[in-house]
């Protein structure tokens, strides 16, 4: 029992470093429905979306039965502009994006958890922004997950 407890404690300490760095949901919507619905949900919270970018080059050819793979970037213009000017080290992660992957008639949505950014960019001014991004992203993803 002691041996197991030690293993658990070690795992908990290391695990907490990277738990929930990604937010993922599965939607029962097929990809063709999920993508426009995702853009609607993003826009409903006041974010702008840029054109969806294809990332599924040769994926099917590699033997993976996924029918589509796009990445959608989004953000609020003033926020993206201000943050990128004030914090250039953030620019590799801006604007935020959500990857959407078709899978057997359903869709998988994946995004970097904004709270991960809060951990790697521990500025007090950014904390509230990332917290809000996290709440909004959860809302967007949950709405897509529950959409029928």
């Amino acid at each position: 029992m002691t041996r197991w407890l030690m293993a658990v404690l070690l795992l908990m300490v290391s695990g907490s470093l990277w738990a929930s760095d990604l937010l993922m949901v599965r939607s029962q919507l097929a990809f063709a429905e999920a993508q426009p619905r995702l853009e609607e949900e993003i826009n409903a919270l006041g974010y702008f979306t840029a054109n969806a970018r294809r990332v599924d080059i040769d994926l099917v050819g590699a033997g993976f039965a996924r029918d589509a793979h796009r990445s959608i970037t989004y953000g609020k213009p003033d926020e993206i502009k201000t943050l990128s000017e004030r914090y250039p080290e953030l620019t590799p992660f801006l604007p935020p994006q959500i990857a959407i992957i078709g899978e057997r008639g359903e869709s998988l949505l994946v995004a970097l958890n904004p709270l991960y950014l809060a951990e790697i960019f521990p500025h007090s001014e950014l904390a509230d922004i990332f917290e809000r991004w996290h709440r909004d992203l959860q809302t967007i993803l949950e709405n897509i997950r529950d959409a029928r």
Partner: protein
Amino acid sequence: MKPALVLLCVVVLSLSACAQVERAETTSDRDEDATGARLYAQHCSACHGNYGRGGVGVPLALEDFLGSVNNQYISRTIRLGRPGRVMPPFPRLTDQEVQEITEYVRSFHWADEPIFSSEPVEGDPELGAKLFIAFCARCHGANGEGGAGTGVSFSRPTFIPILAPALNNAGYLASATDQVIKRSLTLGRERTPMRSLSAMGLREQNINDLVSYIRSFETLSADRVVMKRPANAVLVRQSPYSYEQTIENIKQAVANNGLSVVREELLGEGIVDPGEGERKQHVIYFGSLQMISDGLAHDPRMGLFLPGKITIVEHAGKIKVLASNPEQYTTLFNNIALSDFATMLHEIYQTILAEATS
């Protein structure tokens, strides 16, 4: 066994597993509004599929799986995950929430929770090591590191329902008691490639020796997955050249490394009005078909970081080039199979940034 016959077996097993999951889906009287169902949808369904039918992760709604593990195994797996094998830990869930999810998973099939003794299995690990090489290593790896790729993960074709798990994984060893391991070895797992060692002629003492050897992985440091974030999440270099020249240098360095510029744009294009002031924030996306295809084959979630992306900005009168550090991808995706790819990508980024700014 000929490859065609192996493939046929896998397809048959897959179809059989699917049929079983469908049966569980249609006959169960689960309460889909219950807390466990809600938590499962929130935390598990993305990988394990709605109704546990699998996808990224293993199918959970298999009678023989649920009949061969106890609730403790499921709960600890939720809590601890499988370091490096995609399944993340969930340290922030309460004990009650873990229990609710466990009970919901249990409801995927009518198989009762099996009862296992907590007695450790006594065996000779040295004898077990020899048996492991003979009976287990072909699928589970010479050191119990699991099937090629990431075992059950994105990195295998979806028609294979289950690949051999990593038996040396700390999450697995902390979740499976000796008796749970012994049960799987003795009886195998129906509708998966895991065969009954008892049916293959091993005696109970042989299986005890094997269990002791598998348990001994806990004390071996070699071949164990250690997940650690890099110290810096962003690669940064200051350029001695002008903003415009640095952009050209980056493009030249991309070409020098046998890669192509996929596209270039102002940061936030399509979101931020390009007419607002003189923004000096340029983004260059680069890569090759091979690089993108390799990355996505290891883990399609890599689409968040592919093609490669380098930003060139002017800030406080200085020109900087920046990129996300690929060394963080392995921990970010909890996918040890990404390790070599991430290292290669890191070297490419470092080379391009160095060439463009020296």
